[in-house]
């Protein structure tokens, strides 16, 4: 007798590696990898620094289908050098976005897990991230939605945090973190009084999935289940957001208000309290469904400026 409960048990996005995420997100057997490990397009900058390569330079790219529709996908491997962007890694992602410009898929799905620029090839990484941004915005100009998924152990930081916010929509789980400078960077440069990076609860109240959802920095907060990410991608892929002058002027107003309302806050709890949440300290403890229900009114306000 087949054990269906085993078959339908969820796959944690957090626990999965880059390839497993793709395999479970897309339609079964639909993924065809480009420039895969057998092509050995590795970084030439690592061996001189005693760092082993990865055959795919830490990013998996390719074509696939989502709900029957053609998509292009990239998935960063956080386990390899924190998913950091080097010359080859960056070029694979820029190339994928340029391929989207010619192939015009239903959408581009970016599974982002990165500390930003790979220091071992810092200059190449920085320029590469700028190239990624330009290519991504060109894809959006063509009306092709670019969706970002965040939810692994390494978070999405550095220049990739900027790339993330260039996407049409972002989908995150509670475990995910999204920011610019990592908490440890702030602690090291500005001191532990400024940011105690070892205070995990504080970190998640500052850059974690639930807080980013409260701010409107991400559009969807989902369970840590690849099936939940898949459902959210299918829903959002049909909602590209054109970057018109009007849209950016709206965003300018929204961000100005956010700075005015919360610029003096030092903690996520202060922000949520200001937003009118009755028991802000409870938010981190709620499961996703209860959380979304609790904050429905406040979250709706993000889209009604």
């Amino acid at each position, binding site marked *: 007798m087949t054990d269906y409960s085993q078959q339908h048990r969820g796959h944690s996005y957090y626990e999965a590696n880059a390839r497993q995420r793709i395999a479970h997100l897309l339609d079964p057997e639909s993924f065809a990898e*480009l*420039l895969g490990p057998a092509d050995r*397009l590795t970084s*030439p*900058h690592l061996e*001189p*620094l*005693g760092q082993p390569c990865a055959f795919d330079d830490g990013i998996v790219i390719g*074509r696939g289908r989502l709900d029957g529709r053609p998509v292009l996908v990239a998935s960063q491997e956080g386990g390899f050098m924190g998913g950091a962007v080097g*010359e080859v890694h*960056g*070029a694979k992602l*820029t*190339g*994928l976005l340029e*391929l989207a410009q010619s192939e015009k898929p239903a959408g581009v799905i970016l599974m982002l897990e990165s500390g930003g*620029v790979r*220091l*071992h*090839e*810092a*200059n*190449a*990484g*920085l*320029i590469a991230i*700028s*190239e990624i*941004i*330009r290519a991504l915005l060109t894809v959006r*100009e063509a009306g092709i939605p670019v969706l970002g998924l965040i939810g692994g152990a390494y978070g999405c930081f550095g*220049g990739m945090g*900027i790339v993330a*916010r*260039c996407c049409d929509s972002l989908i995150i789980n509670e475990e995910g973190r*999204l*920011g*610019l*400078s990592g*908490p440890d960077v*702030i602690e090291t*440069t500005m001191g532990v009084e400024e*940011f105690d990076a070892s205070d995990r609860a504080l970190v998640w109240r*500052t*850059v974690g999935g639930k807080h*980013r959802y409260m*701010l409107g*920095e991400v559009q969807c907060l989902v369970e840590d289940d690849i099936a939940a990410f898949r459902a959210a991608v299918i829903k959002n892929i049909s909602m590209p957001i054109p*970057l*018109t*002058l009007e849209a*950016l002027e709206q965003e*300018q107003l929204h*961000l100005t208000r*956010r*700075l005015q309302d*919360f*610029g003096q*806050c*030092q903690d996520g709890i202060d922000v949520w309290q200001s937003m009118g949440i009755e028991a802000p300290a409870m938010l981190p403890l709620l499961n996703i469904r209860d959380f979304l229900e609790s904050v429905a009114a406040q979250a709706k306000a993000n889209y009604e400026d």
Partner: protein
Amino acid sequence: MKIEPLLNELFPAGHSVSVRAGLLSGYGSAGPGQVAVLGTTDHLAVSAEVALELACFVLNVVREKPGVAILMLVDTQGQKLSKADELLGLNGYLAHLVKCLDLASRRGHRLITLVYDEAVSGGFLSFGLMADDIHALADAQIRVMNLPAMARITKLPLETLQELSVKSPSFAPGVDNFYKLGGVLSIWRPPLADHLEAALKRQTCGDHRRDDGMERMGRKLAARVSRLVVDAKPKTG
């Protein structure tokens, strides 16, 4: 170079660029016509507030000055490092500035960058690196991170990084390194006004930095790898 003499050298015919609290905005008169100018000075750290101010000016230019070129003058120590800015979603603010500049470019505003002092990491990424063409003064300082900090974070010996940086332009600070990688198009020495005029007249041709990096042998793989992806044929059957 100090900002006031720089502005006078770039715009001998005059300018109305205001400098306040590390932010620059305004217009200058160049040979080919009026140029919008924005940027930073005094090594300003790019915070949420700074990003909003710069974005506001860009949106004004798009709304009110069709076709005007935008010159970005860069002197920044990088992104603002503060818990409060991270809490607000600083990456989102920088992304907004980037999107506004991209809009300007699509609407026909040429984007030109001149790094005249420091250009660091996220601060540079948020505006200067978005230009069609990026130039730098010879004594400008462009970097992701200084070598001692890099050594601490990577846990690699500083001496190893110093030795390798002589052979490889890929990670160490320096205008010349960024030039070799295609990140900087050209290095400007006086007379600056002539360089600006030539830059304004140059035809834009998309993001040419990978090709420049390949030609200059600083980035031998990026152009090839992205081309391989673009040319990849779907498997049949």
